[in-house]
Structures are given as structure tokens and as C-alpha cells.
């Protein structure tokens, strides 16, 4: 038996097929991964992401600490509630994890990190925090529900009272706000608008049920992966990990190079790599014919090779797509080897889909 979220019984009651995910018993789908995918693109779907790790940082020097810990620049967060996506690097400039950090108050920031990397992340954060006298407090009692899709906000808002609505309705993109002991953020991982809500575990089953009653489709982690792939969002452990830098993982945009005086973990190694010019780059691929791209297939670019990092069938585009790390010299086309055959692919710039619409030419 794996770890169970506060919604485990709800998933079973709603007919979920449960699988092991990084030591957690999580729903993969509730009948059809494809239908759940389309529900998120066309209406509203919800995900139990309570397995993710919520960590609060407290202390007067929390901002100084995050300036040092994160590759992105925490000083972009000046308004309370604002969120920032960042990589956490090791000294070699390789990716330890990707995370979201929320600015709550000047001495309290909240991190949301992956579940599979929980122990490694916590050990690293605690070790680095010591010099800044920052307290690292995990919040395992918080459940987390993501509601995503064009109608996600409206359906979720219908469940709030007038007071709560006032706070949540006006939230800008990539902002969060505390509503009593709930934390509601306008973030997500699907390329759609919506909310990610952290709430006390005991309140989660009733809220999940209320969302279902409001017409929000329960979704498993299966479609979460096809949605995030279409949205061109990286998955830790597939598209990047401790063996690669953000520069060759499509995450160069998340590095806060300025101001130059800010020393963050991994900066020196990254600067050296940037100066030398990375040998690889990160692209999107669209399979021109029939078939399905998957992760770890060989990409052939002339006499050089690269590798798909994650791939699959895009239910929205009805075509197969992938993210890939390839020779920096790649042009507009390449081939991918699937079961011994070389199949033609177009090189494209992710995202593939955003807000329900294709972002690439098919």
C-alpha cells in the first residue's frame, strides 16, 4: 500500500483506476483518459495533487535565502500573493527540481515542489537554509486540488461565498490569496486557466464532491501528462533532471541573470555553459505521419543524434508530439526512430496548445 491523499476514498467512490505514482496511490483515470483530457480543454476538470510537497519558509532573511537558492530571481515577486516558477540547481548548474514559489509576506514564502523528489529537496533546502536562519516547515496536512479549463474559474467561484468570492474573483494570473485557512492560486499545469487550491485535508473530500456536483470532471494523472505535454511544460525526471542544465531543457527563460551581482547556486557553471554556447537545445517535435512518439526515442539530425525526453499522442491536435533534446544545429526537420523505422518530424516551438487552441501549424 502506498501513501494516500485525503481524497483516496473519494477517488475509489468515483470509479478511479488507481496506480502507484512515486509511492502514492493515485488515480490514473476514471474511465477514459481521452475524455478527461477533452473535458479540461473544453470545459473544466479537477486533479488531486495533494501528493505534491508544500513547504513554508519563515524568517527575516527568507528573501535573501531564496535569492541564493533559486535560479530565477525572487525579487520579481514584489506584490503579496505573486507566484514565480523556478529551477533549483546544484553547484554544477544541473536541475535538482522545478518548483513554484509564492510570496506571502516578507518573512513567509511558500514553495510547492514535486512529490518524487520530496526527500532530496527537503534535505537540500534545509541544508542551504541554515546559514540564513530560515525555518523550513513542511505542510503535509494541506490537500491540493487543481481545477483547470475554460469554465474552471466560473464553476469554482460558484462554490465560494460572497466574501471569499471577492478575494478570489479579482486574482490576476499567477497570483494566489489566502481565504481563511485556504490558499487559492490562479496557477496550473495544463495550458488552461483555472485555480490551484491548498486546503486543510479534512475539508478536501467535501470540496471535491461539491466541485463534481458543479460539473467539474474528476481527472487522473494520465491526462495531466498529455495536457502538460501539449502545453509544452517540462516534467521533472523526464525533460530535465540532475544530469542536465536548464539551458538545454528549454528553461533558459527561467534563469534570472540580472542583476549580475546576485550569486545563486549553480550560477558560475551556467555562465560558463552559456559562454561556450550549449551544444544541445530543447525543441518540440510534430510527427508528420502516423504513429506515436514517446520519451527516449532517438532523434536523427543528419549525422548527429538527440533524444526525445517525453512524447505522446496529442488528443487536441490528433497528432503525435514530443519534447526533445537535440543538437543545437537542428533545422526545421528531423527524424525519430520508432521500432527501427525513421519517421519524419517537423521541429516546432512549444507550446503545442494553449487555451484550447493549436499554437503550431499542423
Amino acid at each position, binding site marked *: 500500500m502506498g501513501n494516500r491523499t485525503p481524497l483516496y476514498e473519494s477517488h475509489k467512490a468515483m470509479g478511479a483506476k488507481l496506480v502507484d505514482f512515486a509511492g502514492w496511490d493515485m488515480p*490514473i*483515470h476514471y474511465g*477514459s*483518459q*481521452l475524455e478527461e483530457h477533452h473535458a479540461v480543454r473544453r470545459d473544466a476538470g479537477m486533479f488531486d495533487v495533494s501528493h505534491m510537497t508544500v513547504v513554508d519558509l519563515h524568517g527575516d532573511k527568507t528573501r535573501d535565502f531564496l535569492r541564493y537558492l533559486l535560479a530565477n530571481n525572487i525579487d520579481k515577486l514584489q506584490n503579496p500573493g505573486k507566484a514565480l516558477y523556478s529551477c533549483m540547481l546544484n553547484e554544477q548548474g544541473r536541475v535538482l527540481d522545478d518548483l513554484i514559489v509564492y510570496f506571502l509576506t516578507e518573512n513567509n514564502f511558500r514553495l510547492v515542489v514535486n512529490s518524487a523528489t520530496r526527500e532530496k529537496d527537503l534535505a537540500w533546502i534545509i541544508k542551504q537554509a541554515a546559514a540564513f536562519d530560515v525555518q523550513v516547515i513542511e505542510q503535509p496536512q494541506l490537500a491540493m486540488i487543481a481545477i483547470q479549463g475554460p469554465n474552471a474559474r466560473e464553476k469554482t467561484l460558484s462554490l465560494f461565498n460572497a466574501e471569499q468570492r471577492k478575494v478570489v474573483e479579482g486574482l490576476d494570473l499567477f497570483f494566489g490569496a489566502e481565504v481563511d485557512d485556504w490558499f487559492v492560486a490562479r496557477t496550473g499545469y495544463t495550458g488552461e486557466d483555472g485555480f490551484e487550491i491548498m486546503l486543510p485535508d479534512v475539508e478536501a473530500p467535501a470540496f471535491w464532491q461539491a466541485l463534481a456536483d458543479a460539473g467539474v470532471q474528476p481527472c487522473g494523472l*494520465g*491526462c495531466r501528462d*498529455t495536457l502538460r505535454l501539449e502545453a509544452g511544460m517540462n516534467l521533472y525526471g523526464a525533460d530535465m533532471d540532475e544530469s542536465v542544465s536548464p539551458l538545454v531543457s528549454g528553461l533558459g527563460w527561467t534563469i534570472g541573470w540580472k542583476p549580475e551581482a546576485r550569486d545563486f547556486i549553480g550560477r558560475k557553471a551556467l555562465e560558463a555553459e552559456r559562454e561556450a554556447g550549449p551544444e544541445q537545445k530543447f525543441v518540440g517535435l510534430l510527427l508528420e505521419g*502516423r*504513429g*506515436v512518439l*514517446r520519451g527516449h526515442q532517438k532523434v536523427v539530425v543528419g549525422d548527429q543524434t538527440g533524444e526525445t525526453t517525453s512524447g*505522446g*499522442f496529442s*488528443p487536441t491536435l490528433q497528432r*503525435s508530439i514530443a519534447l526533445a533534446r537535440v543538437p543545437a544545429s537542428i533545422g526545421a526537420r528531423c527524424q525519430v526512430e520508432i*521500432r527501427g523505422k525513421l519517421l519524419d518530424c517537423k521541429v516546432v516551438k512549444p507550446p503545442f496548445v494553449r487555451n484550447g487552441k493549436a499554437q503550431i501549424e499542423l
Partner: protein
Amino acid sequence: MSEVPGDLRYSTSHEWVRVNEDGTVTTGISDHAQEQLGDLVFVELPEIDHEMEAEEACAVVESVKAASDFYAPIAGTVVEVNEDLAGAPEAVNQDPYGAGWLMRIQPSSVDDVDRLMSPEEYREFIESE
């Protein structure tokens, strides 16, 4: 509970076989197998006239999750493939024993069919898995 029609034979790798009046057999994947695989998005079928051994990986079914081999339930020659699956692989999920058939085979030996599991045996087999 998965559907296990009483007039078919089954392999341990979850293919079903129906003997046709002309002595050929039609084959596909069982309801149990399609349920395990999840939504199918692509099916790669063999060439007509392809001769195969029993248990040879002769087709590939790809679901949203993964690619899986389809094994020839008996030895024989492929005489027809279900070309409709190119445009509608979901037929395998919706109607695994009907519109979702994969290929028609001319068996090397009709006796091979008898070595496959009966519906009762297959039902027990998937329950014990």
C-alpha cells in the same frame, strides 16, 4: 467484469480468436486487455501475406499510455487487416470483438485453435492475474 464471449478462444497474451466458415480465423484483443491498455490512439498492423509463427509479435497497439505488442495467437498467414483502425483505433476500446478486430489469418493448422483457452478457462485466467 470484462466481457468474455462464449464462442471464441483466447490466448494467455489476451488475444481472441474466432473461426470463420471459410476456415480463416479473425483475431483481436480481448475486452479485458483493451480495458488494461486504456484509450487506443494508434494500431500498427502487419502486411497482407505476412507469414508468422505463433506468439510472434506481429502488430503494435499504442494507447495514450504506452505501446504494446500484439502476439499472433496461432501460426499462419495474414489474409486481411482491419484498415478502418487507421482512422478509428478507438473501435478496439468500444467494440473489441466486433468493429475492433485486428486481422484475419489463414491458419497453418486448424488444430492450433484448440490449444487456446476456452471462455471458461480465460475467465479464470484473468481473475487469477
